[in-house]
């Protein structure tokens, strides 16, 4: 039980304020509950990605809000206002580039986080719901990448969106409606920009905040999974609280990511192409690197033609996501040790290898185009 100090004679003014709030809100209990979470088997570097993602999201929200001070989401001013941020506003280039590289860091860490959970078998019962909400969050992160890409309204933005929405159009029955709904018309224009802007700065952040909250709530309700090997005695002996060891590791991870993003923003700042227009000129459209494998996949002849395209662009990624969602319900074996789950291990290696292979192939292909 938390005891609130009753005598205030030796307390400083700040302590009094804290005691006042604590008495009414139970601040210390909340803090204790947040920090005193037993981590079975002790803290690990492998567990840092969730916290890092939360950190990246907060930074994306902060830099995103700052960008909105100058950015104008209209077809006639989006490009100019982005150029203004880059060239005229003090440190505008840095904040924009931080936001850009932050999104890349987000995708990298999402892959790392999902891989960790997958390899550790942490999606298994009773953590199925955490995994499902996590998949929804993955979709939201991808949605952020896709919608944010259009906002600078340069050629890269325009063509990534044109092709991306055409892909969505290939969904059976509702594809045409979805594509028009998203574009706000038959071809990308002001309505598309408005829609992507609202989705990027209002809908997705709200969805992400809600679902991330749910994700953490469910995680706390189920408790951390802990390591995948070791006897209960060994795991118990190594168990410690979330604070201080895990938080220390998390914070080291955060600062590493922070400086990496800063360095990338500094040495590889965002440079815009020509303003968006339906004539690509000499530009060879290409999506953001994390969509490159899908882009390369669609170059294959087997994914050509009307049906092939549906297969490659909709059915295959859809089936893959459905498989991930069904995973904890199919894979009911309580074994979590990845070295005793050959199908899972091989599956993970194959998927990662394919993504890498197709991404590299797409990069190599660039040279043959000029």
């Amino acid at each position, binding site marked *: 039980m938390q005891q609130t100090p009753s005598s205030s004679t030796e307390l400083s003014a700040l302590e009094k304020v804290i005691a006042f709030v604590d008495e009414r809100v139970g601040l210390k209990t909340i803090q204790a509950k947040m920090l005193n979470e037993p981590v079975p088997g002790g803290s690990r570097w492998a567990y840092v990605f969730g916290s890092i993602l939360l950190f990246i999201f907060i930074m994306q929200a902060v830099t995103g809000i700052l960008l909105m001070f100058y950015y104008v989401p209209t077809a*006639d001013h989006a490009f100019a206002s982005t150029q203004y941020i880059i060239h005229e506003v003090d440190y505008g280039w840095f904040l924009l580039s931080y936001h850009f590289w932050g999104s890349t860091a987000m995708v990298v860490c999402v892959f790392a986080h999902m891989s960790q959970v997958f390899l550790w078998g942490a999606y298994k019962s009773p953590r199925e719901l955490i995994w499902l909400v996590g998949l929804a969050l993955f979709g939201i992160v991808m949605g952020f990448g896709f919608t944010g890409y259009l906002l600078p309204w340069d050629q890269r933005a325009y063509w990534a969106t*044109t092709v991306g929405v055409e892909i969505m159009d290939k969904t059976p029955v509702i594809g045409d409606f979805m594509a028009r709904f998203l574009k706000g018309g038959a071809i990308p224009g002001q309505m598309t920009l408005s829609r992507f802007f609202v989705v990027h700065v209002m809908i997705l952040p709200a969805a992400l905040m809600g679902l991330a909250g749910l994700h953490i709530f469910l995680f706390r309700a189920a408790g951390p999974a802990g390591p995948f090997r070791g006897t209960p005695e060994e795991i118990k002996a190594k168990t410690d609280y979330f604070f201080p060891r895990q938080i220390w590791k998390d914070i080291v991870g955060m600062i590493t990511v922070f400086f990496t993003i800063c360095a990338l923003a500094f040495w590889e700042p965002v440079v815009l192409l020509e303003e968006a227009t339906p004539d*690509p000129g000499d530009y060879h*459209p*290409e999506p953001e690197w994390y969509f490159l494998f899908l882009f390369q996949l*669609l170059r294959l002849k087997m994914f050509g033609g*009307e049906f*092939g395209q549906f297969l490659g662009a909709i059915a295959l990624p859809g089936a893959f996501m459905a498989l991930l969602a069904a995973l904890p319900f199919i894979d009911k074996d309580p074994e979590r040790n990845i070295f005793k789950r050959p199908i899972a291990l091989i599956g993970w290696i194959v998927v990662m290898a394919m993504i890498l292979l197709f991404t590299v192939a797409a990069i190599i292909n660039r040279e043959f*185009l000029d």
Partner: protein
Amino acid sequence: MARDIQEHVSQYTETHQDEVMMQPKLKTKVRATDREIGEVSKVIVDPLSHEISHIVVSMNGSGERQVAMTFVQSVTDNLVELRAAAGDILELPPFKRDDFVTTHEVEIAHLEERVHVMPGEVLVPFPELEKSVKRRTFFMNFTHVIGFLIGLPIAFPVLRYLMKPMYSPFDNGWLKIGNVSKIKHDDIGVQFKYKRKVKEAYMPEAEIEKNVWVLKVTPAVLEKVYQGKDMEFKDAFGKTVWTNKKDFPFVAFSGKCPHLGCGYKWRQHKVLGQVFLCPCHLSIYDASGKVLDGPAPRALDSLPIKVSATGEVEIIDMEFKAGTKTQIRII
């Protein structure tokens, strides 16, 4: 019996008002004036004062009785002594668990700090007004119905609101894009860039850059484009707006790749010679627009074209949905 209790209450309040009694622990033995009668199985907390108002005594196999704290003489760590005889306690009506909820099921602030009887069930009485509510499920469902009644009437307007710009009529106006004198050789793709005025909703009129590929083709290629038939172009209602004659030597291809909508180029290919190549997904087309290689589902889209006596090329700027085997016009 009821009067007895009433008497006890007044007696208790008179004599023990200032005495602070220890809270009875769960599982402690309960002794009446004459003998031991069971153990404390639950305690009941007053939701407003946060004080324990009753204990529930498990009567050694004779069910449970709810005993007011006013009946309690003394509480120690392992014994609760009552100020009534075992017979009187047994006469109390059986404890009704359904009249209570556990403290986990209600939101009573700071309750945990006041009650020190754990572990076990700490109960809070179900409010009197609640007990008379018969149709709880009905009210629950009715609440949902009202929620629907709020949501339903706005669903359609919201949908229509968002759908406003999605469908617009086709523009069948002719656009001047340049002069045929630009074309020096037969069967060679020549890009004509042109500016098109667009007026979108509230936006000021703007110009966007677009392009089409125009070719002066030899009869062999022309045959491949039109396959011996005139090509008709229709408006949204299926009415023909223009017909490209099968023997007219100029053809225009929409600049949009029919695979996924990128812009393609006229390029030298190592094996296939001069071709249209889309840099996105590497679809390759010959001068007649036919797919030679790559994932494209159909040939390049021919556009309505006419050439004036002075060589001015005019087209109707149509766009077709990418990725489909058949042409589906979208603008």
